[in-house]
């Protein structure tokens, strides 16, 4: 079955040994279940000499010998299988603990109720920047993810690339991912974190190394100035109504309570994966976010129609 969260189908070396182990355990489990079911049915329905009830209609109890053999053989076989599985488990832990070679790229991810802040680290200060909910990585190489908790506990999970790692306030956890093929890999918060735990999706976009370098340069750059009068209007609205929480680099908008929107138009989705990023959805979101994601930090702004159109067009220009 096709699901972007199906972790039995994996695309990288941090997830593949897990899937292999998983398939093995599923096979063992199914086999055990079938064997036990068959034994149970045979035990219930096997042909027996009909017991003669006594004068009061009771079937006398009796003890047929040989029961202990069941326990010896059954438990004996189970123990061997269990210890083999335990050995496989321990060796898989060792396999995926560190990547095959040290990651060259490190990304800091901060989990917040209910979105993901993504910060790219670099030795070049010009390449350090912050974005949200969409993590781009170069395909074919390991990437280190440092996890920081912004509020409550969350869990970083990209099923087809790696298992979960909890994001715990005050604790520096890290994990790594590697995508062998380019593509869009779905991620989701894996630990219950409050009202909108259901809508805390993110995406890991694996690109060719060249595309990735280009993307990174483009994202690191500040936003361009508005190109026409209408966008100018939109920026005005943004600065008055949105800038307390949101940042657009290159403008006066410097809030850091919500996602950095410098290049929001380049992202595939908004509101942590809730909506496809297009004019209609952006407009609905800005106007009445609480109806779409009740409890989220984004208020329902209910802007005058012209302001709404302008600000949404402005957001659409932040490529």
């Amino acid at each position: 079955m096709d699901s972007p969260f199906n972790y039995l189908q994996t695309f990288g070396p941090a997830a593949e040994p897990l899937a292999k182990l998983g398939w093995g355990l599923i096979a063992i489990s199914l086999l055990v279940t079938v064997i036990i079911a068959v034994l149970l049915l045979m035990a219930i329905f096997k042909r027996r000499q009909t017991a003669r009830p006594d004068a009061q209609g009771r079937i006398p109890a009796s003890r047929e010998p040989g029961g202990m053999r069941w326990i010896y053989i059954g438990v004996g076989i189970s123990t061997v299988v269990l210890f083999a599985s335990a050995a496989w488990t321990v060796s898989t832990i060792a396999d995926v603990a560190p990547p095959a070679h040290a990651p060259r790229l490190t990304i800091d991810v901060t989990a917040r109720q209910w979105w993901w802040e993504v910060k790219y680290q670099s030795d070049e200060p010009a390449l350090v920047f912050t974005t949200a909910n969409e993590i781009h990585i170069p395909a074919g190489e390991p990437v280190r993810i440092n996890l920081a908790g912004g509020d409550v506990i969350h869990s970083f999970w990209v099923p087809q690339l790696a298992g979960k790692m909890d994001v715990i306030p005050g604790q520096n956890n890290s994990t790594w991912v590697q995508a062998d093929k380019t593509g869009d890999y779905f991620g989701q918060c894996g630990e219950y974190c409050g009202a909108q735990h259901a809508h805390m999706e993110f995406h890991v976009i694996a690109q060719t190394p060249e595309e990735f370098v280009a993307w990174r340069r483009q994202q690191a750059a500040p936003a361009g100035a508005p190109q026409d009068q209408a966008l100018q209007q939109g920026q005005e609205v943004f600065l008055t109504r949105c800038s307390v929480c949101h940042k657009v680099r290159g403008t006066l908008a410097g809030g850091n309570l919500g996602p950095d929107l410098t290049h929001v138009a380049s992202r595939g989705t908004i509101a942590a994966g809730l909506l496809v990023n297009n004019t209609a959805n952006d407009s609905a979101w800005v106007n009445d976010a609480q109806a779409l994601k009740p409890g989220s930090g984004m208020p329902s702004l209910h802007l005058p129609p012209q302001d709404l159109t302008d600000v949404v067009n402005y957001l659409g220009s932040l490529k």
Partner: protein
Amino acid sequence: MADTHFYRTLAISEVSDPDNAEHLQKLWETPSGLHGWLTTVDHKTIGIRYLVTSFAFLLLGGLEALAMRVQLAHADQHVLTPEQYNQVFTMHGITMIFLYALPVLSGFSNYLWPLLLGSRDMAFPRLNAFSYWVYLFSGLFIYASFLAGNGPDSGWFNYVPYTSRDYNPGSGIDFYALGMILFGISTTVGSINFIVTAFRTRAPGMSLNRLPIIIWGTLTASVGNLFAVPAVSLAFLMLWMDRQFATHFFDQSGGGSPLLWQHLFWMFGHPWVYAIVLPAMGIVSDGLPVFCRRPLVGYTPVALSTVATMFIGFGVWVHHMFATGLPTLSLSFFGVASIVITIPSAVAVFAWIATIWLGRPVFTVAFLFFASFVLLFVIGGVSGFMTAAVPFDWQLTDTYFVVAHLHYVLLGINVFPVIGGIYFWFPKMTGKLMDERLGRWNFWLTFIGFNLAFFPMHITGLLGMPRRIYTYPSGYGWDTLNFVTTIGAFLFALGVLLFVLNIVLSLRHGKQAGPNPWDASSLEWAVSSPPPPYNFTVVPKVASRYPLWESYLPEEGSGSVIDQGPLLAQGRETLGTTALDGEPDIIFKMPSDSFAPLIMSLLLTALCYGALIHSGWLSALSLLGVLACLAAWLWPQPELAQSVKYQAKDVHDD
């Protein structure tokens, strides 16, 4: 201090003597009416109260489950708001795990133990009544959060910092925290009572290796609880202090640790999981052989594996925390321990199958529930084994796979044996048989509904659906599976409804059962159905593991005597025996009915409420009340002095 004891010579009496019964009835009967209802300490009444109350909580938790299933039947539903959904799933968990799963088993144990052990009541009858009332009030206390406008919404696991005041300012968490401290008192005193009862009030001759397995199960669970419950009571107290008095136990900004909560919670939580299944496994180990017309295969390994499970169960709590970033060495240790704990379970499974194989099954409804339980046990077991494998658990954890697993465990290993156990012991409790035909409908609907609801959840989980999300988008491959689960949930609910219906109808129209309708082997079936308030007219003597089957199984031992023995009737009395061999030792004076347990429970609840609303007056007054009540309760009474040594007539000659 042997001098302080005086020896009493006990004449051997006959069960058949009507004078004895009449005299005992006067001593032990609780008067009818409100006064008797509020003061009774009869373990049978308390046991039935536990069963009825916990079942009411089960139905309530079931309604919460159905509300969730309606919400999740299709993608993007808006039946419940996110906040409502989160409260409902939280209360569903709290209700089922705390207010249903252990109390229902305590109900069986309270009702059955003295009957199984050949005694007249639990070792501490007033403590028993107290444990029930506190349980009831703790449940009502937690549910009262809804009346205050907000239920806890943090999951039963209640992780900090989401439950800290910063992120969860409402009083729901405080209701939960204080209610759990109250509930912990109930569990603790109940456990102490079971342990002392098991070791000191067995019939003469009932050595430890003749105990029914349900007693092994509850005894093990009780010892486990004594070690496990303090961790969670303490954790909830610390959390409450963090919330109310700004202490920093779990607050990383003040040097505390959010992970400390998880350790404390699961150090309790995992042994608790075994506490709520081991007695139920005991129900099957004792009930199934009756319907297979043979003794349980492997009594000794099954009893020992019960104890072993709890022992290892204290070393696996970290398997709830595999994704918290612990070092690989500890992950390996706890992963392997979690796999190894399957071995004692395998012992029980093969013992049950061999018992059926080598027996002559009688297809009663109780048998159907017990036999199907074996399959559900194995499915819940292998899915648990999969989550024990650390790296794969990094994927499985917090997905619907775990939801499937825990429901196979908790419904399969708790609810199925419980319903089977009711079909088995209902005749003993009420004197009436349950309807077998309606029972079959009941069985098949619950069995099919259960599997239809929960088996697909394994696949939903493998397709990555996270737990505890109030809605999900279409197109992730989860839609059909969720719809099937919802249908299964309603079928299962219908099956449970038939069970309730069967109880109601059978109470009115059920056939008379007689003392031993199943021709079963243990002592409770030797007395009338329902048993008299004093259980046994004379103290029985036990000479084998299956006292009522000695004519069938002479090789198991013989010489149990039930129809004659010492009559203990100078006030409420029961025989105390030695801990290991069950040799007669002392005559326990048993307390009479009393208001103290109820009043004490009410005062403790008032104390918690005072703490909740920050009322110094109410807290101080109820605390004083608690102390006064305790003094009144424990005030020495000469008629309860435990100084009468037992002396059998035939050896006593001074």
